[in-house]
């Protein structure tokens, strides 16, 4: 087995200060998006960056098992779906209390991830990738079969979750709620991966036999990481349902899990902020490639407009082949 990249201790860092500056820059830019959106009269930016932060949150959650724990889950879209359907189903029954949504979503996510994690962690390597995919596919078909809740077409949600005085119907409030959740998760993960728990997790990634020899039962740590990462994706799913006012089986499609992995690797496994940067790059690429007018000659503009996926696919392949630390790791890499 090749040694996996993504261990923070092995990731080349320019200096801790450069890291801090980069992190502040990313966070500061995200905080200022609404200002720019209102000044430049581009309200659509608010939705776009809300989506970026939601997918960044989900990718951040997945990165806990994928980057720090080397468990390649190809089924985390399942938990986005659980979050989205918790909001959607409760709203369909007239319950729009946000705390109820939160409670039910997290409880369902906890139960599902504990059970699925216990089964999946019996396997490893390729089998782990496939069994996580299998569970996500089951959930996808379950959602398609829920005819009372929209089935294949998805479930429109009448109103956003209500959290006491917080008025989520205001897009700006929702934006800063997502921002706050993202920052809180980032901080929690920063503490988590540098704690004893994080050390054990990273240790069981790079050398499980040595960890076992040292007397650590690695399974509980891996399971805990899997559950935490799933719950972060549940949160992302709940925010996504609030943003789009929609819960859809499409959130659980296998390609969503693939995109989350793409975002993480694109941004860089070795860093906390990498997945968030990766999500931003991925969604901005989608946005730019599908809507930009570059003024290219010979009808290439129309071609790009219709077939931007071609370019996106090519970029993904090139990044996979070329950048071993992802974009964020590459930016922070010391130049020789």
């Amino acid at each position, binding site marked *: 087995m*090749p040694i*996996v*990249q993504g261990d923070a201790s092995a990731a080349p860092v320019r200096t801790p200060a450069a890291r801090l500056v980069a992190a502040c820059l990313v966070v500061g830019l995200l905080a200022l998006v609404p200002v720019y959106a209102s000044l430049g009269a581009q309200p659509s930016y608010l939705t776009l960056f809300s989506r970026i932060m939601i997918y960044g949150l989900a990718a951040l959650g997945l990165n806990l098992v*994928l980057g720090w724990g080397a468990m*390649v889950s*190809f089924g985390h879209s399942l938990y986005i779906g659980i979050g989205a359907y918790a909001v959607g189903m409760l709203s369909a029954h007239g319950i729009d209390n946000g705390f109820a949504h939160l409670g039910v979503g997290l409880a369902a996510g906890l139960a599902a991830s504990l059970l699925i994690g216990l*089964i999946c962690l*019996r*396997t*490893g*390597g*390729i*089998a782990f*990738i*496939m*069994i996580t*995919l*299998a*569970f996500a*596919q*089951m959930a996808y*078909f*379950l959602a*398609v*079969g*829920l*005819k*009372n809740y929209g089935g294949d077409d998805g479930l429109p949600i009448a109103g956003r979750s209500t959290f006491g005085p917080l008025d989520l119907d205001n897009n700006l409030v929702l934006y800063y709620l997502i921002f706050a959740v993202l920052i809180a998760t980032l901080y929690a993960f920063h503490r988590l991966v540098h704690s004893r728990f994080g050390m054990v997790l990273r240790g069981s990634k790079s050398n499980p036999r040595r960890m076992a020899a040292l007397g650590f039962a690695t399974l509980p740590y891996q399971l805990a990481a899997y559950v935490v990462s799933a719950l972060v994706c549940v949160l992302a799913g709940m925010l996504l349902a609030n943003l789009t006012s929609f819960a859809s089986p499409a959130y659980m499609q*296998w*390609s969503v899990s*693939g995109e989350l*992995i*793409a975002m993480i*690797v694109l941004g860089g*496994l070795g860093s906390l902020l990498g997945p968030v940067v990766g999500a931003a790059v991925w969604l901005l690429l989608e946005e730019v490639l599908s809507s930009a007018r570059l003024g290219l000659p010979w009808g290439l503009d129309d*071609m790009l407009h219709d*077939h931007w*996926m*071609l370019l*996106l*696919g*090519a*970029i*993904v*392949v090139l*990044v*996979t*082949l070329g950048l071993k630390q992802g974009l964020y790791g590459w930016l922070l890499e010391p130049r020789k």
Partner: protein
Amino acid sequence: MSSALFFAQLLNGFQLGVLLFLLSAGLTLVLGIMNCINLTHGSLYMLGAYVAAAVYGQSGSFVLAGLAALLASSAAGLAIERIVLRRLYSRDHLYQVLGTFGLILFINEAVRIVWGSSPLFIGVPDALAGTISLFGLPYPAYRFAIIACGLAVAVGLYLVIHRTRIGMLIRAGASDAEMVSSLGVDIALVNAAVFGAGAALAGLAGLMAAPILSVQPGMGEPILILTLVVIVTGGIGSIRGAFYGALIVGMVDTLGRALLPGLMRELVERSLAQAAGPALASMLIYLLMAAVLAVRPQGLFPVKHA
């Protein structure tokens, strides 16, 4: 359900299983020997179907269409191996998943550019257009042809892998690639040959599926996921596992879809059965796979390495 209908469904399940075997055989070797996840296998199947549809539409000759499909898919497979995957063999599975995920996006869109977004339909070749009577039950001759062709490939693969020199090298490479290469065998060449042959089988599956399914962009992904289920259930790297796994998955999926809704209606209330039956039927193979992996993480028929 009458016994004749049940028998027809049994044959349909067998036919899906054989089709899945064609796809799994190549992919399981790539996974087992090169330890490489190749998600583009479904795209090669799609390419086979498209080229077959295009050539058949132009020339009217199914044989010519078949040759073109095999050539195109194996050429595309070799190109993918040479340009992208060869550089990812030594890297983590994560990068293989991502690189081939990007390739899927690329190939789907390329197909859309060449052939458009709307599905193509091609007819069954005239010689196989009729039905064959089996115990008084008419069954489409073309589906019989698929079953026969798949079984012939299975026998051929068995002979090649267990009775020929190249087969010996493949088996040897699977258990210890480094040793084989230090004995003077060009293992990269063997790998490329396996990859090309697997791609050709994927193209063959696409060719045979083209007349009974609609040929459209993205048709490779659902079957790719089924193929992965087959491989993991059967045991990675094992042709025998791919064969039995494909038949099991094909049968369970087909029979589940045919029988479960009716069965549910007998057991539970009608409205619940109508809602849950089809959903449960779609979930069945994933339940099967999860159950198999939970009990036997190596799959049902793991490769025995000495």
